[in-house]
């Protein structure tokens, strides 16, 4: 333990603790900008500088470990002057047209400027004579360099957390900027659209492409029937942007709010999550059968999930040799979209051309996914507009809906009911757990042998999890699986995805099925979720998701009555003709930069 003194108060902290964390322990808040709990230390914004008695230079509190006997001042004249200078300098090169900014009101620089600078503008304006164009080419992410403060959170996110390296630092000195390969647009580079950079950007330099006006236009057009689907992770995050503490489920309030916004039908992506399990589970069993019974050496195993569009684009760029391994199932969002304009329209007697399908996602990559040319199997654009959790919160605020006091409501029928298995799609390991609950029961006729159906080995936040289940007592048609140890792996965050795929490539991991989610923690930590998102908040959201699962009476996808109904009335059987047409897709190799 190290003893030190901060602002005259003694504190004892473990070796290696930063001055920032030691001060936190004494309830002294030191402002930060480049620091983020999820990321490695940068120490480059210099907002967090503190004074060490007897020291010449100030120290970056986020980057400096404590030392025995240190005497630190966090609010001395020297510190205040330097901090104010740093903030003024940042503002002098920042496009501070706050009222025109999408992040107005949720900007860390704005907050600091409010606290420290009080509109003095000591220095010259360095920004307004420069010309900047906003990169709006990507379906998901919008990049505006004029708002960038070069804290490099995005670069560290892209490089270390996600291992994608789409964003990098280019040039030096006054020309220094956050760029991409050859300064191409975000749409033309290796970017997976995961939006983790957007979630960490302290200003409005990186934001999601927003489609609020398009959705309002559709809602207010009486000729159009607007259906909305909501992803599982939205209901455990949305509250945070509407004044409710993290970890609180707001499913009923969210449904009530969506109805008040004027959507014609409020439905659930969890329904198609259940459908995904039926399709993907069957696909896995089919592949296993080909491998084990027909001894087909060309069958692509291990099979990986395909629900995460960030992961799908990542594998297209980075491991194209594994494209056959990726499940051909569309993501729940796209399955929903394809069915909304076919099955749903048919049942409701609607002209599919007049149906607008909107999805609320914790994700920015879903915007890109919806724009993929393959995603038009209904004959129309399957999903018209994708909004993030944050955009929905904004719509709710715009509409003046008092979210906290809303009475809970229920999803509409027809593609609105789900099982607990569908709900846990929102957390890392959830798809695996849901798939095992169904696949095991299909094969053996018995429930998966875990207490309360909770398959705990695939739960938790470890980067790569592995688990296995021995299949015993198979039904006649699945006899070839008797005694087989079904081995699976779960990875979340693209750095872990890269690691697990590299292990597959090197032959150092032996599994049949891999669940991969592009974002840390799975969808609940998605790029479209409320800001801030960090490990503590992810854990709270995960706990909420598992509570939601436990609360539902049906917890296995194949028992969802609407699933049984849709196969009976429309799809026929999993992997059947209609399924192939509407629910499955294909992938393509993309360049490696």
């Amino acid at each position: 333990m190290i003893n030190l003194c901060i602002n005259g108060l003694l504190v004892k902290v473990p070796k290696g603790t930063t001055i920032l964390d030691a001060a936190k322990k004494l309830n002294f808040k030191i402002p930060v900008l480049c620091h983020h709990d999820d990321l490695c230390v940068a120490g480059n914004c210099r907002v967090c500088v503190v004074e060490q008695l007897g020291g010449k230079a100030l120290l970056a509190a986020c980057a400096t470990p404590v030392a025995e006997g240190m005497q630190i001042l966090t609010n001395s004249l020297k510190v205040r002057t330097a901090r104010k200078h740093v903030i003024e300098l940042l503002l002098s090169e920042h496009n501070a047209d706050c009222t025109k900014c999408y992040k107005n009101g949720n900007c860390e620089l704005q907050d600091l400027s409010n606290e420290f600078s009080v509109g003095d503008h000591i220095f010259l304006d360095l920004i307004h004579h420069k010309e900047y164009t906003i990169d709006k080419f990507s379906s998901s992410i919008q990049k505006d360099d004029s708002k960038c403060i070069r804290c490099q959170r995005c670069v560290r996110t892209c490089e270390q957390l996600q291992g994608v390296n789409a964003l990098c630092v280019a040039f030096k000195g006054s020309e220094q900027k956050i760029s991409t390969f050859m300064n191409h647009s975000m749409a033309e580079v290796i970017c997976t659209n995961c939006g983790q950079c957007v979630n960490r950007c302290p200003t409005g330099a990186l934001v999601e492409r927003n489609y609020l006006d398009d959705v309002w236009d559709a809602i207010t057009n009486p000729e159009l029937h607007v259906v909305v689907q909501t992803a599982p992770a939205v209901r455990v995050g949305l509250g945070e942007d509407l004044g409710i503490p993290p970890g609180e489920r707001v499913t009923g309030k969210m449904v009530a709010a969506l109805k008040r916004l004027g959507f014609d039908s409020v439905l659930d992506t969890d329904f198609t999550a259940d459908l995904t399990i039926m399709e993907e589970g069957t696909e896995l069993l089919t592949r296993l059968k080909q491998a084990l019974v027909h001894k087909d050496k060309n069958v692509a195993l291990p099979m990986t999930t395909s629900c995460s569009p960030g992961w799908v684009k990542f594998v297209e760029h980075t491991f194209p040799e594994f494209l056959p391994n990726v499940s051909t199932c569309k993501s729940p969002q796209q399955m929903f979209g394809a069915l909304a304009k076919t099955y749903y329209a048919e049942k409701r007697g609607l002209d599919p051309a007049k149906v607008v399908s909107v999805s609320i996602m914790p994700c920015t990559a879903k915007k890109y996914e919806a724009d993929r040319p393959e995603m038009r199997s209904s004959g129309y654009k399957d999903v018209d507009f994708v909004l993030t959790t944050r955009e929905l919160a904004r719509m709710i605020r715009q509409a003046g809906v008092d979210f906290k006091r809303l009475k809970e409501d229920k999803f509409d029928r027809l593609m609105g009911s789900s099982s607990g298995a569908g709900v846990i799609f929102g957390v890392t390991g959830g798809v695996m757990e849901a798939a095992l609950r169904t696949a095991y029961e299909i094969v053996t006729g018995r429930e998966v042998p875990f207490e309360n159906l909770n398959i705990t080995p695939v739960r938790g936040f470890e980067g790569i999890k592995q688990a296995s289940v021995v299949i015993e007592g198979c039904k006649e048609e699945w006899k070839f699986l008797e005694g087989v140890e079904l081995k699976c792996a779960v990875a979340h965050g693209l750095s872990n995805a890269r690691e697990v795929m590299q292990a597959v490539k090197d032959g150092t991991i032996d599994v049949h099925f891999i669940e991969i989610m592009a974002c840390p923690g799975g969808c609940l930590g998605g790029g479209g979720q409320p800001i801030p998102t960090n490990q503590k908040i992810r854990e709270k959201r995960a706990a909420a998701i598992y509570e939601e699962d436990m609360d539902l009476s049906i917890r296995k996808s194949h028992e969802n009555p609407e699933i049984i109904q849709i196969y009976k009335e429309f799809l026929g059987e999993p992997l059947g003709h209609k399924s192939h047409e509407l629910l499955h897709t294909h992938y393509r190799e993309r360049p490696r930069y």
Partner: protein
Amino acid sequence: MKNIPIKRVDLIFEEVTCREMVQKVFKTDPDEILQQILDSGLKGRGGAGFPTGMKWKFAADEPSNEKYIICNADEGEPGTFKDRQILSDVPEKVFCGMAIASRVIGATMGYIYLRGEYKFLLPLLDEKLIIFHELMKEMNQDFHIKIRLGSGAYICGEESALFESIEGKRGEPRNKPPYPTTSGLFGKPTCINNVETLVHTVMILKYGPEHFRELGTKDSRGSKVFSVSGDTPKAGIFELELGMSVSDFVDEFGDGDTKSVQVGGASGFCVPRKKFEETIIGFEGVPTGGSMKLFNSSRSMYNVLHNYLDFFTEESCGQCTPCRVGCQQLLKGIEAVKKGEKNSRYLDELVKLASTMKIASKCGLGQSVGNAFSSIVENFREEIIY
């Protein structure tokens, strides 16, 4: 403060048989070598002046079986050109210095980080390295030197940015601590010395630490190679005993009309005529990596300062706020004052900003921009305004 009259020395460029020196080094106990370097009082010749013996000791004390010795030959400070001369004239002595350091700290691998613009030295260095490596082999010594070329960024002369560059990354300074001797190149204990420092260690071992200590002052032992340029009839490279006053220096090198001397390059200090007498060139006065630029009365100090700020605005790595934006503000600021867009009191704001840059920047680059700025503005305020 008593100053030492100007005195030429010839140690750095003295011919030394590398073979003999290396043989002597590998026969001597590492602790004994270290003691001699410590006793000599040698301080780093790159400009920062950290005691070389201490640096070696820290690196030697680290328990690691993988350590590195790096020769910093990224001589980028404006007005410095002595390392280039040392490397072209006595490269063997540089290798020998690295071998000495490797012996003391226990490194088996050394790197020379050569300034990109010095690429022309590469064939010569490669040729001499072959001979050196043969000598190592002959003596059964496991020490190897590799050369890495910079790509023209001034910041890569900063030690931790230099490591990043060798590692193949963008040259951006790291946070300290950890210091290089604990975690440097590839995260291993690393000792990084300037070209001239390494050559000095060879001469200290040759003539003994007492010989070195006899030269210079208490705070600035030994001699130093100076790169003299500007308004002088005697531009060039001169090895001089440390501890002379600026006025002695100007008497020797000035053109009779010297208005100021910029000691230590763009990141150094401007000494005006009225302070020539009282200012000692050395660590007790104005430290220098070797750059000595003389300006006579025909020069505008505004132009001099503008030139330096222009340089820093371009050469800051851009990573930390005080340096990236501060340099631009200082540059645009003096322009605005000159044009009358800002009144002269704005200079005081800029001086305060320069002080912030000095204490709040991440690395030595940003921390030293204020040196030139403050010393020029303080002494030549009228020239900046009018």
